[in-house]
């Protein structure tokens, strides 16, 4: 059993204090919300921190509110609440479903939405003990100089394994951020960068405060599909959210957001299928489209070619799922 080395922890009482603590401690400070990602990775020595700043007692991060045609979800809201909240179920059912597919009830009772979106990237060469990694000479993400997934590559290509990111991108979510320079808004799709070492593009000292999702119109439906070896606990090895906008039985637009590929989700516009009916032909074509445009890497477990074919299947099933809903 690997032990967690002792760390100093601050418990700010409000958001202003949290931001001030991050500014005071600089790069050695690390936010901890539910801790279900950051604690295991600190233990395995995948990340380092001198000081932890806990968000557990920051009231401004809590709550789910319907306001001005949007659903605003505090970053500190636990996944268990999101999976069962009446407003989320009524307006963003695919988000409730994605949250309910994360890990296990125990982890959803601790893990937060903010932590899920800011989840570290995963790779079979990094989610290992220090000793294991040293035997390989490390990699770009852990005091080494070579990536074992893409030899010679300049960027770490570990996978974003958040279950809620693809679905929230498909819903067109934006983020409320607060940092030393004040507040700013950012489209969720722009949160992620291409390098798995620093894929979360928050500025130093910035806190994710809330996620805002515009309420989908009557013709908009989103489906989320996840594949992993076990039906629970496991991170997704294939994950995809499909959004279809339909009017009078015909597609007017759509988005496909695939996770578990690279450090950022692959987002594809489906506008060129406008005018089509949502039927089995469309489902097959969009599956093929995902297959052509997404290339799973051997970064997470399971054969990359299998995951590519599986992605096409999951996209097809997502479209069929959406097709049975009248619009």
């Amino acid at each position, binding site marked *: *059993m*690997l032990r*967690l*080395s*002792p*760390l*100093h*922890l601050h*418990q700010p009482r409000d958001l202003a204090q949290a931001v001030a603590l991050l500014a005071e401690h600089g790069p050695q400070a690390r936010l901890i919300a539910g*801790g*279900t990602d950051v*604690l*295991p990775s600190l*233990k395995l020595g995948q990340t380092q921190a*001198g000081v*932890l700043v*806990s968000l*557990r007692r920051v009231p401004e991060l809590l709550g789910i509110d319907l306001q001005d045609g949007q659903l605003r979800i505090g970053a500190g809201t636990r996944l*268990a609440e999101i999976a069962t909240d009446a407003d989320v179920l009524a307006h963003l059912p695919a988000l409730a479903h994605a949250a309910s597919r994360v*890990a*296990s*009830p*125990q*982890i959803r*009772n*601790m893990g937060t939405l903010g932590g899920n979106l800011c989840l570290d990237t995963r790779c079979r060469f990094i989610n290992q003990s220090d000793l294991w990694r040293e035997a390989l000479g490390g990699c770009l993400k852990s005091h080494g100089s070579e990536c074992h997934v893409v030899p010679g590559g300049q960027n770490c290509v570990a996978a974003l394994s958040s279950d809620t990111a693809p679905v929230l991108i498909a819903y067109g979510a934006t983020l409320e951020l607060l940092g030393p320079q004040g507040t700013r808004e950012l489209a969720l799709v722009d949160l992620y960068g291409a390098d798995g070492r620093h894929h979360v593009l928050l500025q130093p000292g910035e806190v994710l405060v809330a996620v805002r999702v515009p309420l989908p119109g009557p013709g908009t439906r989103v489906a989320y599909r996840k594949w992993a070896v076990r*039906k*629970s*606990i496991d991170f997704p090895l294939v994950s995809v959210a499909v959004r279809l906008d339909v009017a009078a039985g015909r597609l007017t637009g759509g988005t496909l957001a695939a996770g578990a590929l690279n450090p950022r989700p692959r987002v594809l516009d489906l506008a060129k299928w406008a005018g089509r009916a949502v039927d089995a032909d469309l489902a097959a074509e969009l599956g093929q489209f995902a297959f052509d445009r997404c290339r799973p890497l051997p970064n997470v477990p399971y054969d990359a070619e299998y995951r590519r074919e599986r992605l096409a299947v999951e996209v097809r099933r997502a479209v069929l799922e959406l097709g049975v809903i009248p619009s």
Partner: protein
Amino acid sequence: MSHRPVVRISCTINGVAREFKAPPMRRLIDVLRDDLGLMGTKEGCGEGECGACSILLGGEPVNSCLVPAIQAQGADITTIEGIGSPGLRHAVQQAFLDHGSAQCGICTPGMVITAAWMVEKKLPADEVARTLAGNLCRCTGYSAIIEAVQAAIVAAQGSRG
């Protein structure tokens, strides 16, 4: 990190007010087992995978191997020692006995904690398997456990009318 401040933490454990001192990032499982002598909670993986360390924090199951001690501050905690008593078994414990649901027993405290929460929440019996998804068992093959929890839910609902 030689500087290890210790904080005083007050909480309720199994209905009794407790106070202890611990470094804020000490794992709650270590506080429970090593500092407070509540050895019923087991450690399997230490990484959030297996659920052997499940306890109720604020009435809901969490993995105590991933909970820093500081989060116990002011909290209401139930460990397996707080479920039933040797003279008066909880419906879940009785059902585990009736159905032969324990083999090596390492997963059992965590299973019973999650199951007791399901009974409390009056969960429908057909959600048992899905809700036990965070509790792994390497011995039983699960059917005896699932049957026991379903029986306990039915028994509890019957006795409450």
